[in-house]
């Protein structure tokens, strides 16, 4: 069996599972975001009174952090009251940041667990050897009531990464290239595992970006076998016991792909789909109105660090706005302690409260009709960050910072001495 199958089997109380089988799994932790008051509504509509286990629920007020409309404020109010009534202690209020980063920062994610959040990018937690998957509001309400949810055991695809990353090329570029080659629906209903020597060069932040973006190929979950890098990260954070599962030798993947990253250039997904991928040099010179650094994909300390490296002692182009959103309070504090915030504010960055901000087109950095944005986030669907006719280019944090500096898309390798 694959490690993912072993996780599902254990959660379903079975010794084996097979691809395609529908299994009912105990969920170790269920997360709900502030966009989905429907979760609470569905809970009551289904006759719920008390949640199954309040210690296995975490509530995130992250997408509207802090509320910018009365309606958002009202939704958040109802969430807080629900947590207080139900005894849910893990209420991550508007000071905390984006759900996926909080889960990592606070040691809430651990290898071998079943983690379900009302957010599509829950694949991120494959970086820790967890089974992480996104669901909708009603599915999450079912977990609140019963502690479990059904899953179809997915086919697993292996993506083997060989070679050595060139200067200016990051995990984000690798995954964009992979999505560009395989397509935005290649991973639908499947699990995606990353293997290969390149992983040894990738810290947790980069691994999270890799797994996070598998959502953009439709994946149900992602996986990286925990190793010494994972364990070093988890060591002081995770309080609970956990089990690391390993894939049996001879497991047959549904498909295997090997990519050599050695010759890779920085990549960009051009409007309006994430599999519309090119070398960043193809768009060199394209003016950008906004550069956006942040989110559960590209708002970690390492991402802010690379931006600070590119912008130290310089100033962004006067025709470009540079919006920076640390992914979490933990990220914000660490970046502050390391001096990156000072560097970026001096360079002309506009800082926003940790959270999702403009990533989903609701507030804090929206785009006007006809504007162009380069973003470290995950999506460039029409209307994603504001007006339907705005153009969004998805790229690495380094490419975003370099574009802010020059006011146009450039090759970030030229700005990383």
């Amino acid at each position: 069996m694959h490690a993912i199958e072993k996780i599902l089997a254990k959660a379903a109380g079975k010794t084996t599972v097979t691809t395609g089988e529908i299994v009912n799994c105990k969920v170790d932790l269920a997360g709900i975001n502030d966009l989905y008051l429907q979760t609470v509504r569905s809970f009551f509509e289904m006759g719920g009174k008390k949640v199954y286990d309040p210690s296995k629920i975490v509530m995130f007020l992250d997408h509207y952090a802090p509320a910018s409309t009365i309606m958002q404020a009202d939704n958040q109010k109802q969430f807080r009251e629900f947590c207080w009534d139900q005894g849910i202690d893990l209420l991550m209020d508007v000071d905390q940041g984006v759900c996926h980063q909080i889960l990592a920062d606070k040691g809430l994610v651990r290898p071998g667990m079943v983690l379900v959040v009302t957010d599509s990018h829950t694949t991120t937690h494959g970086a820790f050897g967890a089974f992480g998957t996104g669901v909708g509001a009603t599915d999450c309400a079912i977990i609140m009531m019963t502690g479990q949810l059904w899953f179809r055991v997915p086919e697993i695809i292996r993506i083997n990464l060989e070679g050595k990353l060139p200067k200016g090329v990051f995990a984000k570029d690798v995954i964009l290239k992979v999505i560009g080659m395989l397509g935005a629906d290649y991973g639908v209903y499947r699990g995606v595992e990353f293997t290969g020597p390149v992983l040894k060069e990738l810290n947790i932040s980069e691994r999270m970006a890799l797994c996070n973006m598998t959502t953009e190929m439709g994946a149900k979950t992602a996986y990286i076998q925990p190793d010494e890098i994972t364990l070093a990260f988890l060591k002081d954070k995770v309080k609970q016991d956990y089990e690391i599962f390993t894939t049996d030798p001879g497991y047959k993947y549904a498909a295997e792909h090997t990519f050599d990253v050695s010759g890779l250039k920085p990549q960009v997904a051009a409007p309006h789909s994430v599999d519309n991928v090119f070398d960043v040099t193809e768009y060199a010179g394209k003016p950008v109105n906004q550069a956006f650094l942040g989110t559960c994909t590209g708002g970690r300390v390492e991402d802010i660090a690379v931006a600070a490296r590119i912008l130290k002692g310089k100033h962004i182009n006067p025709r470009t706005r540079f919006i920076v959103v640390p992914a979490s309070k933990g990220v914000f504090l660490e970046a502050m302690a390391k001096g990156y915030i000072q560097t970026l504010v001096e360079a002309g960055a506009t800082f926003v409260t940790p959270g999702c901000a403009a990533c989903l087109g609701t507030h804090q950095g929206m785009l006007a009709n006809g504007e162009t944005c380069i973003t470290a986030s995950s999506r460039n669907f029409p209307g994603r960050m504001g007006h339907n006719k705005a153009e969004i280019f998805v790229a690495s944090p380094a490419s975003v910072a370099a574009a802010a500096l020059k006011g146009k898309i450039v090759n970030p390798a030229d700005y990383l001495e």
Partner: protein
Amino acid sequence: MQNVIRGKAFVFGTNISTDQIYPGQYLDLTDPDKVAEHAMQGADPSFVKEVKPGDIIVAAANFGCGSSREHAAVTLKTVGVGAILADSFGRIFYRNAINLGIPLVVCPGIADMVKQGDTVKIDLTTGDVTNDTTGKGATAQPLSPYVMEILASGGIKPMIKEQYGQ
């Protein structure tokens, strides 16, 4: 549950995301009737004015990809979409829509077989799909027994309520 669904088709392309089905700026709405006012707004702003209960959405690959927002399913359910046929679906949208009781049918090649305004018929028990305007037919992938059970119960909420309601 109605096993044979027949309606006028609204046709969409590839990778229609939930951002297009239901734009992010309206995510703070929670009343289904208000949510319904923005159905498909990011893909075709005229859809919401023209759609009638029982109409059918036909799309190419990966319909409903992207964000997990259940609003995307709620908005289509509330305007009365009778069924959605696509080459393939985004997985969270698939679960959300089935949970609400909207029949979602995977039918590879369907987008090439139907034009906007054609009348399409689908038999959920046999998987037979017919374009009544052109006479062309296709076969959809069968729905799993569990999905059929959810649809037959009128969505997952009544099912869970019966089993677990407190």
